[in-house]
């Protein structure tokens, strides 16, 4: 028995050992995961649990007191929260469907191309994704500039009035949305292309024999089989869009007024400008709950007829 330090225990031999003996026998496995797990507990697991506790506390200069659900009451009764929520939902409601749809259309158009052209377009669409969001936001702030920006120049070229993109509370949020929609969904295109590549060719061959048109083949074979990818992208994009922060901080600082304040921008300001940690933690718990509700809803709704093989 003592010689059996094999990696994979022989069937039957495990059952005779107690749990502690088994743990001791596999001690090296725990050593292999220990460094990662220690960091994971310290910087992920513990902070997540702690966030819930902090949301029930108020931080004063010399002490910290438990205030129950006061912070949450404050969140839900503050006008700014509802403004930030509306802005964030507006952003998500437009950018998520737009980005997923654009990714689907672009991938469907790229897929039949020769591999050279395919590589070119894939790279062209992914390139803005590899640049830091700070960089992209700075460039778009310049493009949206009222007097000298590229956008207003194009508008004037086609005979339209200039728009005060980032400077007016009516347009500012839409400008950030427009930037997000026009920046190609590089990840989505890549994932759709990979998923299209793994669809068995026999399905298309059978459809061609039945006289199905290219559109019919796309509509009745490609599209249904892409559903798991679509689900994944929708959930991913929703989570991402509810966390929108960088473009807001770089382009508008949440203004004019509060017209572009989003939930994460509000968390950031509450925590690190006002140093109201309790309220900021309560806000992040609410954000977490909203994202989870959306994710679960989307899973239910979109995965209803997916068959996992």
């Amino acid at each position, binding site marked *: 028995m003592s010689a059996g330090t094999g990696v994979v225990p022989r069937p039957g031999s495990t059952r005779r050992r107690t749990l502690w003996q088994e743990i001791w026998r596999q001690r090296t496995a725990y050593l292999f995961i220990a460094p990662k797990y220690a960091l994971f507990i310290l910087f992920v697991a513990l902070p997540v649990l702690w966030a819930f506790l902090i949301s029930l506390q108020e931080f004063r200069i010399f002490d910290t007191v438990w205030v129950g659900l006061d912070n949450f009451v404050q969140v839900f009764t503050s006008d700014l929260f509802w403004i930030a929520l509306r802005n964030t939902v507006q952003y998500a409601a437009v950018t998520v469907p737009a980005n997923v749809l654009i990714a689907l259309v672009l991938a469907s158009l790229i897929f039949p191309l020769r591999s050279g052209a395919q590589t070119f377009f894939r790279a062209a669409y992914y390139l803005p994704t590899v640049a830091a969001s700070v*960089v992209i936001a700075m460039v778009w702030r310049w493009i949206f500039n009222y007097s000298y920006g590229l956008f207003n120049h194009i508008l004037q070229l086609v005979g339209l009035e200039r728009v005060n993109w980032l400077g007016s509370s009516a347009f500012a949020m839409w400008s950030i949305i427009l930037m997000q929609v026009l920046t190609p969904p590089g990840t989505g295109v890549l994932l759709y292309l*990979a998923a299209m590549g793994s669809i068995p060719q026999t399905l298309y061959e059978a459809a061609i024999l039945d006289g199905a048109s290219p559109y019919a083949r796309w509509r009745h074979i490609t599209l249904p089989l892409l559903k798991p990818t679509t689900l994944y992208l929708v959930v991913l994009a929703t989570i991402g869009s509810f966390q929108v922060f960088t473009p807001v901080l770089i382009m508008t600082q949440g203004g004019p007024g509060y017209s572009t304040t989003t939930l994460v921008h509000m968390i950031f300001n509450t925590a690190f400008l006002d140093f109201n940690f309790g309220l900021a933690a309560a806000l992040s718990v609410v954000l977490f709950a909203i994202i989870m509700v959306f994710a679960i809803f989307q899973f239910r709704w979109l995965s209803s007829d997916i068959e996992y093989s």
Partner: protein
Amino acid sequence: MASVRPSANDSTTSTTATRAAGPRPGTPAAGASWQLALGRVGLGVGRGIGWVVLVGWAIVSLVPLYWMVTTSFMLPEEVWQVPPAFVPTVGKELPALLLSGRWTEAAELWAKATESYVFLFQSTPIWRWFLNSTIVSGVATLGVLLLDSMAAYAFAKRRFPGRELLFWIMISTLMIPGQVTLVPMFMIVRDAGLMNTLWAVILPDLSMVFGVFLLRQFMRTIPTELVEAATIDGASELVIYSRIMVPLAKPGLATLGILTFMSTWNSFLWPLIALQRSELFTLTVGLKTLQDKNLVQYGLLMSGATVAAIPMVIVFLMFQRYFVKGLTLGGLKG
């Protein structure tokens, strides 16, 4: 697990297959030749529209990056020119000056065009920021590769009590948005005395769980027989890990390395909170403060943005195929 394989080489095999299928629409509908002809025309028009959409979006995608680079090379007065210069003066005139051998004029023009870069490197600590970003991304990437491959090896090839539970606890946090932990993380890092050190940024990067998931998926495809054979030959755990698993997982490690380098290089919110002294800024945080101080110096801002973007563009163009593989491996099919 088998589902991982086809996606890795999808682009070559399946493209040829669809192409072969493409150009003969409705073959069996013989007899109605006018229908066939009409179908061909429709297909041609459809294909034309397809190309217009693809090229149009490629332009929309690349124009901001082009605009960033050209603005950074504009002459100071050119930035405020109406209508804007799509090709900056330096691009229009420098080749001609060089070809006709007017070296001094060429040098003068070049000096004027790169003024914002000279200012950037002389009056801001951008070298320092660049170095900090390199240190943070480099250390975080190497650390992630080491720690994640060790953990992934144990999770993929060892059977130990609690394996499933420990793994799923880790993976269940993948969906949690990072902002939830912002405040507690700030307190932990502050109380540990790590505020305003690069470790404040590196350590949270090292604790990301995505890589463990990705590498475990990858290592599960390595035959267990190899590990068993090595065990029978008397190889120690460390030898099995370092001589068998790591070499065989190299493609997965390359993918994870590139994705980690990119995400740490581009990360913004946490470094913005954790680093408050200018000499410790990473590039993204540095760019933010550059903008705060020079709100409308777009030439300067765009040269800073270009400096921050170039390394990632090079990394992407060099390792394109790993991006595809990493996204598909990590994304789908748990």
